[in-house]
């Protein structure tokens, strides 16, 4: 209309008279018409682009499905959905497309409508946790691409793989062993094992113990050839070495050895008269004492303590004698118990180890004593590399923390260059993985040692490190292990527990090792006192298939009585009843239940049955009836992960089974292990 009016086409008398004005050229009018159409097209395109937004399309497809299944108009939510979590500073719009996420019946639907797998949403309600706090990704986004389902430029948190998601679990779950995680729990355990906390400040892990031998008196213990070999390559001597390889140059090794072999501290080895030493008898003692419960010989045996096949070539005989006689004098913090051997036994055992377990390994060719003049330089290396962070040595502070703090390590800014050079995608997880695998790979001058992690171990440690985020987690969202002080046994009982290092394998009140699955907290309610007393003196495994067996510590009868008395009176659980009715009818009913539930698949009764659970013959002499009932009713409660299945018994059934089990007579000839 306006265009028409602007083309005077003989209407305006004025122009013709003026003679100056001409019509607007047709060329311009055509251009104008074309441009107007294009502008209209652009406007329409903009509207269509907005109207055909991905989330809108998904919502209409979802509504179609709803109508098809439920008929009528489904009560599908319309518009962009979002979960706002002010305390986490997150807005998650994922549910705009993931419309079936909270519906269990959508579990097998195609994405993006699939219901959430597993029981996760029960414990992590979407309105409290949103999506991206666990999964990563860009919650604000409303398209597949922008939500960072795949890595996205300029977004540092792409959606995590299943494994890397555990790092996100670990941001709130600061327990040592967070529930339902594998890589995270493994990574944290590895970080404890390798004493990371000795050099680094790690949030939530600061109270962890650092375990490493004290270095005072090292000259009395090891040979220069061994020390050189060890410093050059710890895993060359000990495959499971917890100490990393510090990548020392030969001259550094020489200097460090010179420093370490100087006399430090006050350590005296016993003077031993080796005449009459009988290695053969020592070997018998070695086997009877079950040293391989903790130590291994040629890779066979326990993993709690070092491999012994080559130790004779490492340490001196006299030192060995002193060590076995009283390990606590040389290393107050050692896990090794002080066995009750007489001096002859110690001598024979030391002779056996020194002679028969002395296959040379990882020794340096140079056996000479290092030049003492190098000690000053060695001391500087000792300081620079932070050796004293793990190892105690007279005159040095403990736990120097020479490494950087690890808070925020999961968000650290990474230099992509070394990764790109190695053909690795320069992501943060990959950077941590590469660094953990070998610190020199990302920084040639790194002070951190190479721990020689296997690939999966390095990946686990990376997950644990990634869980250390820079942003503070709201305190209400953090779950921690209960903060209880380490258990310190008192009095005579305490002295015995320390002497025999019971807590190296057993746990009391959360303190102690995990080699033994027998937690001592309620042992008095579980086992009969006379059985405990007898077992401590002569430990015979009740499980046939069990490899770890309690060592023969040669505990005396008086000591056993004291320990058993204390355990039976103090280490009890009030929730466990002492006695349950056990009449003949109950025994018969129990026998029937025993057969019905297939208990003999795992347990031996009489001469037949499985090797999985304890031999039940004579268990009446062993087990407390109240405990047996409690155990049968809910085994997972007492021992998570146990092989004893929960049969869902009623109390009456559990009592009947107990009556039957405890009525079983002992076998005539108990097999000695």
């Amino acid at each position, binding site marked *: 209309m306006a265009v028409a*009016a*602007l083309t*005077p086409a003989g*209407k*305006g*008398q*004025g*122009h013709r*008279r*003026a003679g*100056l*004005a*001409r019509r*607007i050229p047709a060329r*311009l009018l055509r*251009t*104008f018409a074309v*441009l*107007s159409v*294009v*502008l209209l097209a*652009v*406007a329409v*395109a*903009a509207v269509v*682009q*907005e109207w055909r937004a991905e989330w809108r399309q998904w919502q209409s497809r979802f509504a179609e499905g709803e109508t098809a299944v439920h008929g009528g108009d489904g009560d599908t939510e319309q518009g*962009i959905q*979002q979960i706002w979590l002010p305390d986490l500073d997150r*807005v998650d*719009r994922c549910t705009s497309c993931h419309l079936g996420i909270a519906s269990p019946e959508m579990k097998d639907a195609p994405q993006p409508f699939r219901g959430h797998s597993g029981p996760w949403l029960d414990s992590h309600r979407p309105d409290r946790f949103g999506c991206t706090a666990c999964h990563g990704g*860009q919650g*604000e*986004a*409303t*398209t597949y691409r*922008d939500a960072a389902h795949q890595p996205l430029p*300029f*977004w*540092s948190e792409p959606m995590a793989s299943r494994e890397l998601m555990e790092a996100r679990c670990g941001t709130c779950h600061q327990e040592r062993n967070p529930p339902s995680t594998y890589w995270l729990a493994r990574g944290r355990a590895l970080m404890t094992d390798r004493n990371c906390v000795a050099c680094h400040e790690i949030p939530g892990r600061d109270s962890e113990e650092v375990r490493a031998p004290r270095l005072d008196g090292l000259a009395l213990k090891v040979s220069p050839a061994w020390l050189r070999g060890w410093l050059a390559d710890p895993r060359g001597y000990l495959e499971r070495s917890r100490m990393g390889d510090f990548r020392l140059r030969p001259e550094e090794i020489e200097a460090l050895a010179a420093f370490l072999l100087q006399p430090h501290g006050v350590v005296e080895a016993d003077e031993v008269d080796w005449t009459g030493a009988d290695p053969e008898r020592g070997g018998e003692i070695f086997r009877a004492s079950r040293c391989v419960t903790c130590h291994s010989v040629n890779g066979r045996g326990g993993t709690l303590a070092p491999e012994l096949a080559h130790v004779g070539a490492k340490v001196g005989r006299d030192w060995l004698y002193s060590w076995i006689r009283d390990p606590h004098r040389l290393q107050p913090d050692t896990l090794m118990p002080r066995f009750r051997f007489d001096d002859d036994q110690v001598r024979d055992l030391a002779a056996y180890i020194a002679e028969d377990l002395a296959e040379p390994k990882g020794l340096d060719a140079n056996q000479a004593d290092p030049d003492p003049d190098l000690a000053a330089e060695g001391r500087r290396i000792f300081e620079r590399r932070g050796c004293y962070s793990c190892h105690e040595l007279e005159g040095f502070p403990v736990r120097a923390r020479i490494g950087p703090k690890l808070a925020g390590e999961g968000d650290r*800014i990474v230099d992509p260059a070394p990764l790109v050079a190695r053909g690795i995608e320069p992501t943060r997880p990959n950077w941590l993985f590469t660094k953990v695998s070998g610190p020199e790979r990302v920084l040639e001058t790194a002070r951190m040692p190479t721990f020689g992690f296997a690939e999966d171990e390095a990946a686990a440690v990376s997950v644990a490190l990634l869980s250390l985020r820079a942003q503070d987690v709201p305190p209400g969202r953090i779950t921690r292990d209960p903060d209880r002080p380490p258990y310190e046994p008192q009095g005579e009982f305490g002295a015995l527990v320390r002497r025999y290092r019971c807590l190296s394998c057993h746990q009391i009140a959360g303190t102690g090792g995990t080699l033994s699955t027998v937690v001592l907290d309620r042992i008095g309610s579980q086992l009969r006192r006379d059985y405990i007393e007898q077992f401590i003196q002569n430990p015979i495994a009740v499980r046939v298939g069990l490899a770890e067996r309690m060592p023969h510590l040669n505990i005396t009868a008086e000591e056993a009585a004291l320990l058993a008395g204390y355990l039976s009176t103090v280490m009890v659980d009030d929730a466990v009843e002492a006695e349950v009715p056990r009449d003949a009818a109950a025994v018969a009913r129990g026998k029937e239940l025993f057969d019905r539930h297939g208990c003999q698949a795992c347990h031996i009764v009489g001469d037949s049955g499985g090797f999985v659970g304890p031999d039940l013959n004579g268990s009446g002499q062993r087990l407390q009836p109240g405990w047996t009932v409690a155990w049968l009713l809910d085994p997972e409660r007492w021992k998570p992960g146990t092989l004893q299945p929960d049969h869902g018994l009623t109390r009456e059934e559990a009592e009947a089974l107990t009556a039957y089990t405890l009525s079983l007579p002992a076998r005539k000839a108990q097999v000695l292990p």
Partner: protein
Amino acid sequence: MSEPTRGRIHRAWRRIYRSVFRIGWPRTRQQRLAAMLSSLALHVHPTRVRVHVLRFSSTLGLGLVAFYLFLILIVTGLALMLYYVPHPDAAYRSMKDIQFAVTFGMFLRNTHRWAAHGMVAVVFLHMCRVFFTGSYKRPREFNWVVGVLLLLLTLALSFTGYLLPWDQLAFWAITVGTSIVAYFPLVGEPARYLLLGGHEIGQAALLRFYVLHCVILPLLMASLIALHFWRVVKDGGLAAPPGRMRRAPAWPHLLFRELLILVFVLVLVHAAALAFDAPLEQIADAARTPNPAKAPWYFLGLQELVHYGAILGGVVVPTAMIIALLVLPYVDRRGGGVGVWFARERRRANTVFALLAVVVVVLTVIGTFFRGPNWDWVWPWLR
């Protein structure tokens, strides 16, 4: 409806219409002149324009394009202000909201972004046009000065807007840009302090940039634009060679061409907004310096110069250039060559200006495409 009623409604409608448009739809030559004079929107135009300047080739319509871009920026900017929150904790999040949740939000932001970049380029080209056609000569010297100020204002508007998304790109571009300011002796540091409201870019800086970008600079700009237009008319219309005096009524010839260019600009800007999304990088983080940290592209020529010497690039060259531009019409007082592209009698002046313009463009291109980490030379196609 009865005849008298219809008549009454018609008369009432006419009364209202006439109270707004005194002339009505102009049909005669007189009416059209009167329409041009009586309308606020139109009266800044001359009633008649010289036919020479109506030709597209004589102005390329660049000044008008710049003005339209400014209008688009005002409209989209006001819409964006409804969602944007000028606080470091919320700014980036509100950008994300605009992009992902606001209806037409992304389109709006794209339009604003590309119009802003376009305006910087177009204003620069407009200045080149004015120079190459000798249009700054008497009596238009002062309007050239106003134009130079408008160029500076355009840069300032673009620069202040650059910080608002509060992403890494914004943060570090402003860090680099404001550090160039600080190179000025004596006044540099205080000026930077005043601009940022502190020594670092934080809450104070964001708010200052926001107020500058949304209130102070647009008001200044609008006033100067009005002055610029006013002076065009008062200085005898757009420059044209002295001989060509033939005139045509502004209605419809000028107005139609203005309308045509408006549609053209709208198509271009909105098509760009549809096709290309404005970048939004990670949230601003003072602890993570990108390598290289680059100023906005129109300052990359300066940054490139700063690379050769801080004082040279940060102080000497820009100051000299601004002063030269401001005094240019008063120094170059020779007549002749007005309203003609690359006039023979102005060959030397045009050559010098063209060289300088090419240097500016080349430096900017180098800074934008050929500089990588540590400001080392890179080949953009090898990245």
